[in-house]
């Protein structure tokens, strides 16, 4: 389709979507945990803007609320929490990922193609203006999955987990202009609690193994 045909806000939305995808690639390749968290925050911010745009476009109020939620939770609180944890626990670097960066990127690209392919029929059905970004949401989710697979530090795995949440949120946004309020709140609550639980976790793990390296967490297995 030719970009000029679209109104500017949609163009903006598509750009945001593309940027989200880009960010998740960046996270896939990022080694420094601090930077990882910043990228997460940035992703959250983009998400927030996209939500606001949609809210303004469709004029549906609950989208404003969820935008606020995103802002509060994903842009401000969680990054702050994570930074704090990082400082407290002193984990700044992730070690080399299991698969080298180039390889990961390649897999990532394949995943994106797969995701877009899957999304084709759905987007065709979608009534929303943002239909094309469903594929992107799916891609973001799967790439976040990859991120989690390839990381060795508990902390970075969590970041991957959160970016997956972002992807989900964006998916909901672009497919259906967001879920009903009840669900939105529930999800947000769960994410919040999850983070708090994680906080507790990190300290427990730390005091047991005095590091957050996942290689300590490989003792329970069948393969003696």
């Amino acid at each position, binding site marked *: 389709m030719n970009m000029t045909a679209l109104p500017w806000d949609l163009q903006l939305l598509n750009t945001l979507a593309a940027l989200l995808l880009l960010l998740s690639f960046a996270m896939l390749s990022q080694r420094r945990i601090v930077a990882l968290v910043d990228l997460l925050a940035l992703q959250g911010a983009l998400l927030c803007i996209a939500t606001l745009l949609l809210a303004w476009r469709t004029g549906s109020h609950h989208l404003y609320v969820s935008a606020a939620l995103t802002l509060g939770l994903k842009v401000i609180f969680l990054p702050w929490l994570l930074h704090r944890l990082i400082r407290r626990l002193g984990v700044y670097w992730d070690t080399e990922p299991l698969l080298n960066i180039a390889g990961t990127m390649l897999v990532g690209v394949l995943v994106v193609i797969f995701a877009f392919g899957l999304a084709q029929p759905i987007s065709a059905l979608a009534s929303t203006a943002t239909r094309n970004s469903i594929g992107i949401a799916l891609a973001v989710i799967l790439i976040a999955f990859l991120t989690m697979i390839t990381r060795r530090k508990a902390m970075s795995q969590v970041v991957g987990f959160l970016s997956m949440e972002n992807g989900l949120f964006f998916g909901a946004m672009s497919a*259906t202009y967001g879920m009903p309020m009840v669900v939105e709140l*529930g999800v947000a609550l769960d994410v919040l609690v999850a983070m708090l639980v994680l906080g507790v976790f990190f300290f427990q793990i730390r005091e047991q193994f005095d590091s957050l390296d996942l290689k300590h967490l490989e003792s*329970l297995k069948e393969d003696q």
Partner: protein
Amino acid sequence: MEFVILLGAPLLGAMVLGVFGGRDRAPEANVGFSLVTFLAACALTSRIIAHGNLLVAREQFFIDAFNVFLVTLTAFVGLTTSLFSRPYMRIEAAHGRVSEGQQRLYHSMFQLFMATMLIALTTNNMGLMWVAMEAATLSTVLLVTLYRTPASLEAGWKYFILCGVGISQALFGTILLYFAAEKILGSEGVSALLWTHLNAVKGQLEPSVLGLAFVFLLVGYGTKVGLAPLHNWLPDAHAEGPTPISAVLSGLLLNVAMYAVVRCKVLVEGSLRSSLPGRMLMGFGLLSVVLAAFFLWRQRDVKRLFAYSSIEHMGIIAFAFGMGGPVANFAALLHMTVHSLTKSSIFFAVGHATQKAGTQIMDNIRGLITLSPTVGWGLMMGTLAILGTPPFGVFASEFLILTTAMKQQPWATPILLLALGVAFAAIFGRVQSMVFGDTSARRLPHPPALIPVFTHLGLVLLLGFFIPPYLADWYRAAARLIGGE
């Protein structure tokens, strides 16, 4: 009314015990709340029997034949588990394995866990169901890591991450479901997420979307069911948490997750008009049964052993639901019931056995029958029951499942035969040498609670001989609901 109590009691309990859970009367309070919940469940059940399905809170909650018996089962097992955990936690405290704070955490989280499961069962809103499932995970994570041992932390971490990731897939599936539904039901309000509405219009939902949705939902909730190869969190979490938690995890949580899967399957099959979802379930089921059978062969830790057996049975149930049809669905529901009863009773017995022997390594547990005949026989009987030897109820369901499989899916029967044989050899050989033989183990500070064990076994025994008519009617109704025409 009963309904409010049903959900309110455990929530209240969670708060109260969150504050006073460390007092030395806390276990009794725990039992009390569970008892109230159970009574409410019974009342609700009788009402459903009397007046049929029930929609409450602006259709947010929906109770029908399918979930009401799961509600009762959940409440009942919750009650017996709280009964069992009373002496159990006392003994743990006496052994100095849990501090007061940990007891507080334990009790309040236990109640919260019950609450979340009940919500997940009764809600009519697929989104809310998702939220509740996630909450169930979160409330048990800290229980799994209660002992703060390295192993338990690892188990907890895996549990958290794997289930978290899985459940996120389920969320995406839910989103797709909503996306498909809002076209017919409109995006105003939440009606597009209400199962009853979805079920009403399932024929018109867009197949391609629902197919994708089902994949995500299956992978998501299937992770919690513990279907291979998504099961990896399960044995760790069962083995490292306190035994009452293992009991409710494999006795209840798996059931609830399976319930979610089946609810989704109903919608999707209605829309796809193909047996693809069924075949997927069957595939998962067989894979789980076979893998679990071979994993069983290598176990040294008794709780891991029975965790894998849970995987095996979930596989059987999934297979049965996958086959579909009145008999198979009936059998699957029956199997859910008897499995949760039997398995929790086994975990009770195992809990005391491990406390007596002071270890979970099976090679070091010997001669339970001479040490404490009740525990020994309890374990032996429970094992025989779970292995599907009559006259226990598990046999009834396996009888129906296998015979139906022979009619509908004969190709699968050799696999099942093999897996069941291997599993039998693995479990029975180990349990036999734990129960029989000579021993040198010490007495316990508190008398073990064996009423729960034998209550459960008694019920399972009863179900083997005689299924009360109204229970049978539930099963039939539920089977019809799931699409057993």
